């Protein structure tokens, strides 16, 4: 049995309620920006149709120029306010862009061209991002797994970031270039952060690893480099770029041109390594020591149809898509300057 309530301490409750209402009002007034939502979604200005852009990204080092552009005012000079939203993976970022939540997103090229070849929402390539350089995209072997040369990879267990990704394509292409049969390889989907440990504990015989995990797998797991995929036929392969839906690009030509100009100048500034090294611990959470030694990809801003066409050609060759994709028609021509 519960005892009968005596007088309820109303004053205390009233105070509490008052406090909550005040807090609620304060939150309403200042909350939107602090919550991390854009405050004015539709506004434009004299320079652009849409001033506030939501850009999808990933916490990876090749996005350094984008962060540099936000931090050093490259976007601001073009009349843009950019909010970078990190997605859990590239596929999700692309889906959110097609769904209209992001205006422009970074994505690796394989999902972009797969989506285009399937003929759903038409996409436009707004800017290029980065291409492979030696020592950035390697097949590493576990220290005790008995893989020493590309030939040893046949029939082994190879960790890749996922089926149908650019890492799978690059492993297959470089095995083929080395005349190694990849049909009996056991593909093991695994996130990049887990690869150094998978190599160390022999869960995988080899793994396709990118920076900073390349440096970490050599340092912490004693992994052995087997193939540098960025040499030979895959040298300077375009890896990822910035895309929007065709609808967005058509409706906001000035905005897209402003984005392109800002990225041009940010990428030019990013060629100086000392400009982006301090950014890596902030947005990609790479510790300072590792940030100082990792190999960076080649940063680009202008999309070139001839170079980019290599990706759909490879995808066609390895059966990722059935019809070729005309890259030239997807590129939004950069502004003349």
């Amino acid at each position, binding site marked *: 049995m519960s005892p009968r309530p005596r007088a309820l*301490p109303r004053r205390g*409750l009233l105070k509490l309620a008052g406090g909550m209402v005040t807090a609620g009002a304060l939150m309403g007034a200042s909350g939107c920006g602090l919550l*991390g939502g854009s405050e004015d979604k539709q506004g434009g200005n004299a320079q652009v149709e849409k001033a506030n852009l939501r850009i999808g990204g990933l*916490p990876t080092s090749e996005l350094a120029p984008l962060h540099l552009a936000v931090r050093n005012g490259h976007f601001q000079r073009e009349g843009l306010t950019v*909010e970078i939203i*990190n997605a859990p993976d590239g596929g999700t970022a692309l889906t959110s862009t097609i769904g209209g*939540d992001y205006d422009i997103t970074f994505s690796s090229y394989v999902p972009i061209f797969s989506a285009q070849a399937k003929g759903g929402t038409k996409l436009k390539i707004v800017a290029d991002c980065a291409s492979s350089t030696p020592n950035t995209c390697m097949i590493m072997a576990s220290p005790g797994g008995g893989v020493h040369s590309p030939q040893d990879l046949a029939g082994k267990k190879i960790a890749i970031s996922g089926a149908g990704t650019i890492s799978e394509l690059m492993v297959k292409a470089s095995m083929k270039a080395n005349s190694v049969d990849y049909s009996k390889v056991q593909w093991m989907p695994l996130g990049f952060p887990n690869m150094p440990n998978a190599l*160390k504990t022999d869960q995988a015989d080899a793994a396709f690893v990118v920076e900073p995990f390349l440096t970490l797998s050599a340092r912490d797991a004693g992994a052995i480099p087997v193939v540098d995929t960025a040499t030979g036929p895959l040298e300077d392969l375009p890896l990822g770029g910035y895309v929007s839906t065709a609808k967005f690009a058509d409706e906001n030509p000035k905005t897209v041109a402003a984005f392109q100009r800002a990225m041009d100048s940010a990428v030019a500034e990013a060629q100086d390594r000392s400009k982006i090294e301090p950014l890596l611990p902030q947005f*990609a959470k*790479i510790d300072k020591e590792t940030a100082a030694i990792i190999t960076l990809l080649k940063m680009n801003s202008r999309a070139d149809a001839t170079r980019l066409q290599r990706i759909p050609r490879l995808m066609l060759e390895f059966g990722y898509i059935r019809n070729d994709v005309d890259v030239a028609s997807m590129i939004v021509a950069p502004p003349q300057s």
Partner: protein
Amino acid sequence: MTKTLRGLVGLLGFLIVWEAFSRSGIVPQQYFPPPSTVLAQFAELLGDRSFLLDLIATVLAWAIALSVSIAIAVPAGLLLGSVRWVRVATRAIIEFLRPIPSVALIPLAIVLVGAGPETKITLAVYASVWPILFNTIYALDEIDPVMVDTARSFGLGRGRVMFTVALPNAAPFVLTGIRMSAAVALILVVSTEFLAGGASGLGTFVLDASTGAGRMDLVLAGTLVAGIVGYLINEALELVHKRGFRWSAVDREAA
């Protein structure tokens, strides 16, 4: 005082076991860093502006979600608890909706309300409505009918009985529901940030730290902050319960 002391001894013991385990080499230290490393990162993070903005984003989303849940669940609970036929009519649909895990609704929420902070707030509201709703309904069941009859015999109408007898009587139960919901809402906000990404938030910070460079020290430091926020929220609500409802016999351990 001794209670606090005992708590501290327990905490210290836990930290020592953790430190010893992490340094023993059973697991690689960079995957399970010792508390000395994590606490150093934790201290550094508290001075980091972008991390504080992440923290504010999460706490704000939590506060909004909990306020909205209370605003929905208390009136709905009063309605369902006092009008018999509404409760019978909605029983099937409520029992169907309640067990759906909120995180499974992330893709749907992104499509419906967008990928901004709306998503995490919506999902947190969805999950945290239930404990308040059910506690309110059950509280109304528990009211001594003699009290209601007494109030009626003094000529009070249905509405006045609701506000002067039923609601004050139900308040301790409702607050217990709110405490449960506060924890649920925090879990949902952080896990939605982690699973769906976003511009800022504790979960997004942990996501970036784990996928960007596999920084387990930062992941654990971020987790520690989430744990502390949850602890402080619970302590604050418990204090409200103690101060506001000293007369109530509702078991505070129910949550």
